[in-house]
């Protein structure tokens, strides 16, 4: 009777063991890469919206300040999503017949909200507060990127905890004078390090990394 397992099966079994071990390692590496990839963090591209709202036009062309629409950014956790009445402040007067705005008018007059798709989404156990960041000199562009150059808003920052902590451990590069908060194209003067340190002192910036700073 021939052996049930001929000698070459030893090689196969050794090879499979190595593959298994390697597979585990490769799998773990892939998982880490995937978790940090733009696909996982949500940076993979613009998100379709029910109405084609173009920030390029409103911010860059018309020069409307961010806070005209996102009006609670200095007083609340949420920057505030503009009510339809804010749209109609202008579009009641201009482009008030435009077919592109038909949906906005219909929603406004029927008192039904337009369901926008959220772009910057944090998990429910994270409590981010816009007002404190704005008060301490963190500009809109630091997290949201050049929104004035986006046809459709895209998430540019990974919004991972590591990314948050990076700034909370060393906030200096991301600070700017409060007057420049909404100035998306602002560039620091050459000696940016000195300005950051000066602003930390001037605005009394005390970044915290205790868990309950963000998790409650």
């Amino acid at each position: 009777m021939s052996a049930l397992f001929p000698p070459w099966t030893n090689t196969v079994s050794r090879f499979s063991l190595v593959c298994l071990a390697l597979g585990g390692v490769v799998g773990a590496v892939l998982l880490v890469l995937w978790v940090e990839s733009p696909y996982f963090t949500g940076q993979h591209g613009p998100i379709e919206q029910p109405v084609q709202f173009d920030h390029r036009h409103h911010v860059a062309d018309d020069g409307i300040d961010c806070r005209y629409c996102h009006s609670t950014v200095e007083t609340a956790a949420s920057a505030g999503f503009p009510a339809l009445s804010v749209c109609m402040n202008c579009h009641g007067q201009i482009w008030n017949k435009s077919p592109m705005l038909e949906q906005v008018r219909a929603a406004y007059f029927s008192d039904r909200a337009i369901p926008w798709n959220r772009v910057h989404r944090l998990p429910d156990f994270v409590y981010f507060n816009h007002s404190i960041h704005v008060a301490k000199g963190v500009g809109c562009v630091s997290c949201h990127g050049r929104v004035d150059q986006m046809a459709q808003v895209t998430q540019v920052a990974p919004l991972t905890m590591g990314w948050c902590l990076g700034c909370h451990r060393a906030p200096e590069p991301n600070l700017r004078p409060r007057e420049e908060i909404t100035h998306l194209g602002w560039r620091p003067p050459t000696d940016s390090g000195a300005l950051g340190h000066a602003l930390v002192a001037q605005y009394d910036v005390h970044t915290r990394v205790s868990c309950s700073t963000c998790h409650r």
Partner: protein
Amino acid sequence: MSSLDPTGPDVPIARLRARPERRLWRSLEELARGTAPAGPEFPPGASAPPEPSRRDFLQLLGASAALAGLAGCVREPPEKILPYTRRPEDVAPGNPLHYATAYALDGIATGLLVTSYEGRPTKIEGNPDHPSSRGAAGVFEQALLLSLYDPARARAIRYRGAGRSWRAFLEYAAEAVDLHRKDGGAGLCFLGEPDASPLMADLHERVLRALPAARFFSYAPLAEDAAYEGARLAFGRPLQTRVDFSRARVVVSLDADFLGGGPDRLRAAREFASRRVPESELSRLYVVESALSLTGAMADHRVRMRSSEVVQFALGLALELSPQLQGGPHTQLTATRPLHVMARDLLANQGRSVVVAGARQPPLVHALAHAINAALGNADRTVAYAAPTLPDMAAGPAALAPLVADMRSGRVETLVITAPNPAYTAPADLDFGSALGKVPHAIYHGLYEDETAAQCAWFVPATHSLESWGDARAWDGTVSIVQPLIAPLFAGVTHAELWAAFVGEGDRGAHALVQDYWRRQPGRPDFDAFWEEALHDGVVRGSATRTESVTPRWADIAAAAAAAAAKPTSGGGIELNFLPDSKVYDGRFANNAWLQELPDPITKITWDNALLLSPTTAGRLGVESADLVEVTLRGRSLAAPVFVLPGHADDVASIALGYGRTGLNEELAQGVGANAYLVRPSDAPWFAPGASVRKIGRRARFAITQDHFTMEGRPLALVATPRELRQHPERIEEQRAALPTLYDPVPYPSYRWAMSIDLSRCIGCSACVVACQAENNIPVVGKERVARGREMHWLRIDRYFSGPSALDPEVVFQPVACQHCENAPCEYVCPVNATAHSDEGLNEMVYNRCVGTRYCSNNCPYKVRRFNFFDYVGQRTQPERMLQNPEVSIRSRGVMEKCTYCVQRIERARIDARVAGRTIREGEIQTACQQTCPTRAIVFGSLHDERAEVARLHADERRYDLLHELGTRPRTAYLVRLRNPNPELS
């Protein structure tokens, strides 16, 4: 429990047809009987898996691991943002708003301040400007929030079971008024609860103007009729007694639970507690009572006796203290030692003492208390009198009897019921339910389609207090405008609108009704300014009623006393005591899970009531705790489980009202506890002699959160007299001195958050527990899981009995939440760093890191960590989900949680302060438990701030650490409970 059905399948067809208004039924038996089958709706194990075998467990484990793995791969769907069409003024999404309103319980209001997020009320606190509240709120007021979102609330107006519109009801009401106009409204009766609302009084008058013969009755099962009768006996007219406990050095309570119950309990608790600390002159409390109450638990000397003997005791006290009564007949019960000592103590403190009589006691006891206070010169010092705030002085069970007689004789054609559930709360001997069947046009207005609704042709759902416009008055007469926090979730109408339907104004809306009423009042030239201010402040300034000076009619009191002294003490057998419940009140809160799961302050029983017996009586009857017994009183009997309670009077059995509900829709309340109304006599609603108790032989199962009474020799809740404190300061010092440690000291550069809990002030009322539950989105778990020790309360109140005798124990309450140890044992053992220390000394719990090993809980010496064995919150339906505080994460299954010192409040205050460019001020952060505490026992703040009260209290001579010898360095400090016993009695 199996369902034993008395009705067989051969139900007479006539009975089936007799109840056409019922909508749903599951069996012929149920249809014929009109109630659900006894026992649970679903068989055991239907809603939860049965206890798994080891094999099943492993299968479930494998399956859930696989499913959890799959679930982890699912990308969450995109989140939608739905902006406002027009953003309301002042609303910034995520920033809470606070509105002042009021809630009236049995007609007397407590001012409230309600937190609302985007139009969604999420937390109820007391209104600091309100004279009764002063910022505090009791368990009932706070738990209103859960009742608001109760999915069991009635949702439609019905006529004989079929849905109707409000318009249809208005037409019906108009027709009824036309019909009744013929005889002036003689066949029209209104049955409401006592109500001090000026608007309702006005509507009352207007109905009477149209229909002069219409009659109004008030009914509240816990009404304080005897107090008003007592004042009538003593002063010739009904008066309200107002006690200022902050001025009283000696307080004698004659069966008065002024801390646990009563319309002004929050103010009484605050004033009383202000005299229990060494900063003030320490007061001394004597309590005479039968069942151990919260007030009894605070007593320096407690005399337990049958409720019926209290009158003799009062008589004895009055004869010793008021010369005006002396020379009269002597009572049988005079020469007891405590009585003499009490009398001497009162005499030594004339003008600085007070004797209070309990609402459960007959009018004579109240009259005697008034007499004693007058004789001691306490009147106008510690006790004052005023015209009653409530217009209805007779609202107890006895007042209901004439109405029931009329209903039975057919003289009541239309009955409008706005009192909560009288078919359930009326004493059984009145048989209100069957009398109601004789009323052709019964209209019931209530929050739930309950026992009463089932008997009435019309049902009109009531709006919740937080959905209503109206007005109300506090105990001292201060008016509050009740404003809604949210539009009615279901098709409710207010009490005012219902009555207005009978004067043809039912379609005007409650807002117009209440505003019109106040617009008509003279003396307010600028009505809009008045209205804005009243709504904003939550009180109408200067609307309190004045107190007046009165003199007792000594002769009348002496005559009544003589008559009582001549009467033999009534009856043998066991005296059956009826008590207001600390949680469900008279039964109206029975469907409120927060209250049902709240442990009773004294017995620590959840989801149940019990027949309380003293150890001696239980021994004589041969019963022990959890034995089911049959209590029989005057031929009516009731099965209830026994709970043996130290400190209870002998030969007395006590049972709380409000349980044993059978309402079809209130699922939570069904089958919880025993219905004591079934044996409550209408002529003796509070205590009656001649009861018998018989052991049935079966046993019940209690869900008790603390089933042992002693501290087992450990220094947990420390108690001392001022003298002991002076003589042995080292005994306290031992419990707080720094212990050697191997760890380097940790610097806390910014704030050092800390708490102090003063056991001298804590009265055990449990308001903090409900506050914590509401603030921190804490789930309820149900009786079964509480019985397994899986309750989720972050804050518990331990109750210890001590003293030489189990029959007369001393009681001490100790609130225990996470101690936020500087050397926290939980932190060392967490394998995933899910519980960590913050730079300000908070022991933080990071839910998203927690993997549920429960090592931390095992290593916690204080046992304050709670584990989510199931996904309790995920099971919630709309509208219950609207309840959640958006500032606090919802914890899922498999996650540990515990007190955070309300870190969400710290962070909000920090961000507000930092945006404004300043530091957090002392008093800016109040934890939820601290905020609501009526006695200010809990203080929170930063130890770095020398002016902070918490820093002062941490340095107090009474301060000690819980389980100090473990070296955990807790940030929560306790202050020793002070007792002030009379040296003559100790």
